[in-house]
């Protein structure tokens, strides 16, 4: 039975449970609702909840667990000899799955009767041709072992599906029956339902933790897998990045890290002065009217998606820089995509980030400090330079660190504007590449996660995650530790 139907059946049971529970509570109270502990609908909800919760929980666990069990069982049928030279168990198992899918499809299309599919042997007919006509292409010749494993795969799956339906529906019925039996006018239905809702709320809040765990697990497992087939000393020690999917790649992280840091540095050199001066002007000099226009205008820059900045770098800034610094101009630049292109555009993107964060921080400096400084005869700019900025410094450093973490994690601008060549060079007009750009290029296209060339992306992702998280935590630490408490 398909999962969708199962879900619909459980939902229908829950609706029936709601109606029954509500009716039972009312009739139990002799049609006098004041005798009930809770409102009638709570009795209904209580029954519905007890139908759905156990049934769906078991369904979810079952959906995750069944593929593992079926796989293990089919794998145990494959002897060592069934794995050809140069192949792996994983590849043979994917053949098994494909044959099993093909048999399913053949039965569905009427090419094969259900009984024949279970008893089919290799000698009897050309299975490959039949699977091909059902729309499943099998690459290698089907061996008896693979066919046997596929048949076991199918039968275990079918048994599993049947059992699943029985167990899930059974649990729903039992839960509903128990809840109905509980239902009497003195039963505290509202408290039960509210406990259930509270559990849902806690679950939703815990999703943040689950997401973090998911990120860490997916990065850690694949990174370990990568280091198993590629030495970590090479990854952290080599200064060359030259992946080749044919094998013999050199995957040193340093050229990528250098590109990332160089581009981020240029971005910060653009955005920090502009953003900081803009924030100072907006908070100290600008009148309310000017501020009401200029602040949203700057923040518009933050609302523009990064793909737009990427295209701007690729098609506008790159050619513009090339016409000045390229072969027709100063001759420093080979192509439009370069560290400078990506850095400049990323700097523009970060201006509002720096300015609005610093603006908040400068505004938080108490007025009494300014008044004291003016009272001593300082001009406005002297006050800003010698009183306000030092007082706001921890916050501003925190803002700059956050901007740096943004710059390091930025993807689209560097994918489109920085070029693809990994090199260690000091010339800002050279094309270089970054950690994020390489994650994209190593993971798009081929979905085979077995080669070091694809798995390296997870190690790069891990590096990126650790770097940005470190910067964020460090920024928070600086702000907390050095913040002056004025009140």
């Amino acid at each position, binding site marked *: 039975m398909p999962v969708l139907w199962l879900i619909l059946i459980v939902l229908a049971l829950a609706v029936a449970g709601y109606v029954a529970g509500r009716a039972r509570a009312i009739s139990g109270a002799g049609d006098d609702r004041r005798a009930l502990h809770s409102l009638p609908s709570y009795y209904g909800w209580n029954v519905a909840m007890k139908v759905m919760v156990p049934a769906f929980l078991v369904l979810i666990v079952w959906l995750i667990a069944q593929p593992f069990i079926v796989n293990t069982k089919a794998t145990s049928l494959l002897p060592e000899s069934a794995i050809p030279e140069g192949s792996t168990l994983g590849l043979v198992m994917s053949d098994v799955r494909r044959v099993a899918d093909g048999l399913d499809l053949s039965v569905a299309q009427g090419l094969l009767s259900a009984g024949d599919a279970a008893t089919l042997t290799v000698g009897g007919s050309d299975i490959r041709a039949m699977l091909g006509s059902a729309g499943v292409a099998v690459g290698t010749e089907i061996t008896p072992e693979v066919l046997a494993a596929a048949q076991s795969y199918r039968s275990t799956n079918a048994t599993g599906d049947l059992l699943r339906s029985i167990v899930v529906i059974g649990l729903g019925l039992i839960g509903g029956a128990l809840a109905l039996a509980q239902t009497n006018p003195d039963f505290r239905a509202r408290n039960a339902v509210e406990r259930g809702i509270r559990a849902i709320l806690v679950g939703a809040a815990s999703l943040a933790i689950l997401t973090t765990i998911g990120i860490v697990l997916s*990065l850690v497992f694949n990174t370990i897998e990568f280091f198993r087939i590629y030495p970590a000393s090479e990854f952290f020690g080599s200064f060359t990045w030259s992946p080749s999917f044919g094998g013999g790649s050199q995957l040193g992280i340093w050229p990528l890290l250098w590109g990332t840091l160089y581009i981020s540095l240029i971005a910060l050199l653009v955005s920090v002065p502009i953003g900081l001066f803009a924030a100072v002007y907006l908070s100290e000099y600008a009148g309310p009217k000017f501020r009401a226009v200029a602040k949203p205008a700057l923040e518009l820059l933050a609302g523009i*998606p990064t793909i737009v900045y*990427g*295209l701007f770098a690729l098609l506008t800034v790159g050619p513009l820089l090339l016409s000045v610094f390229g072969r027709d101009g100063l001759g420093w630049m080979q192509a439009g995509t370069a560290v400078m292109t990506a850095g400049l555009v990323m700097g523009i993107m970060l201006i509002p980030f720096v300015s609005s964060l610093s603006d908040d921080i400068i505004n938080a400096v108490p007025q009494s400090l300014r008044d004291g400084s003016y009272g001593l005869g300082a001009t406005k700019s002297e006050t800003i330079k010698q009183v306000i900025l030092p007082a706001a410094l921890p916050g501003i450093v925190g803002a700059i660190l956050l901007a740096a973490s943004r710059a390091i994690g930025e*993807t689209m601008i560097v994918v489109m504007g920085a070029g693809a060549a990994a090199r260690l060079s000091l010339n800002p007009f050279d094309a270089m590449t970054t950690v994020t750009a390489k994650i994209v290029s190593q993971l798009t*296209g081929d979905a085979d996660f077995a080669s070091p060339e694809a798995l390296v992306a997870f190690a790069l992702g891990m590096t990126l995650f650790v770097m940005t998280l470190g910067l964020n935590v460090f920024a928070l630490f600086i702000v907390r530790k050095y913040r002056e408490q004025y009140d």
Partner: protein
Amino acid sequence: MTDATYTGGKEPAKHGLLTVDARTKKRNASEKRFRLYGLAAIGAGVFFLVVLLGSILANGIGAFQQTFIEVPVYLEEAKLDKTGNRDPAEMAKVSTFGYSPLIQNSLWKVIVDSGAQTEFEDGGDVKQMISASAAAKVRDWVLANPDRVGETVDFQILASSRVDGYLKGRVSRESIAQDKNIDAAHLDLVDVLRAGGTIHKSFNWEFITGADASESRAEQAGLGVSMLGSLFMMITVLLLALPIGVAASIYLEEFAPTNRFTDFIEVNISNLAAVPSIVFGILGLAAFIQFAHLPQSAPLVGGLTLTLMTLPTIVISTRAALKAVPPSIRDAALGVGASKMQATFHHVLPLAMPGILTGTIIGLAQALGETAPLLLIGMVGYIATNYPEGVFSGFLSPNSAMPAQIYEWAKRADPAYYERAWGGIIVLLLFLLAMNLIAIVLRRKFERRW
């Protein structure tokens, strides 16, 4: 010495209110300079904004116009319907290869009628002016109207992207010197036909509603299918992120005891908000495709990934909205006998709803423009040429998304696609603008000050 007395000697320095000495001048000048730096910084920011928007508009507006050729095509019965039954099933056997010569010959007839001087000899020589999609368009029309075979019907067919580029100034006689796709002689013909009104530019709905096309047919490519992909992704995000985000915020704001576990959740949420989006792409790839075996390039997977990315934004704004509801509301509800759950769901939540919706719309807008995670789950590189067949396949069959489609176009070699990419950005920005305007209106209209 208690009394300070003037003992003669040098004149006192001329500090005073009326005289401005050199030091004061210097200080005042530095004040002015500092102020100018600030103004210059804001000016630079606004300048960048203007340049950015200007280059988007200047480069992208052309994508909404497309060059069409008006050709009366003679639908020859002997070629299209040999049996003469007008049976669409039989006529479908004639492929687009059967239609191309008809269109080319019709265009040739138009050229000959216009009296243009040309070195070309027949319709086959002018096929470079016609989009490769024209035959399919005429074929579809004929199969839908089989009884018009044998007549001459006026068609607005797409000109090839080179002709289109020539009308828009992207292609010139110098730039095509090395180009095998078109000759200068074709451009001469275009000039003649344009003067006669046969070739003209008009608004191109196909760009907004159409499907993506192969690399060589830039003139045919449209955003429509990827827009649907984005729509299904946004539905997924809305259906998941709004309830989960609201539930999480209600727990944290109204029920959570102050303990380690709550702290841990809060730290996690604020850290997730700062995790680079590409890392969420890696998570989506590993969790939904590698582990859960959901189909690659499916809007459902994109939506799930973007949900995880948007949740922190929604949680943060929802908590702010809940916090803005004054405690007296809760106290009043509790006072008349409501349970804590009832007070929250019947009173606090409805009052916080405008703020929650505003935050959700802004989160959705952010998710709509996000590209990097989509690259990893395979929504780039898939050429979205087919509309999804229904709601179910809309979620599960491979599709692209608006930003992914723009990226895909920007990667292609033909400069005609750059114009499409800029045009796509205009559409994307219009969507974002609309969403933000809705958020602002909601906030203005429903926000209460307590």
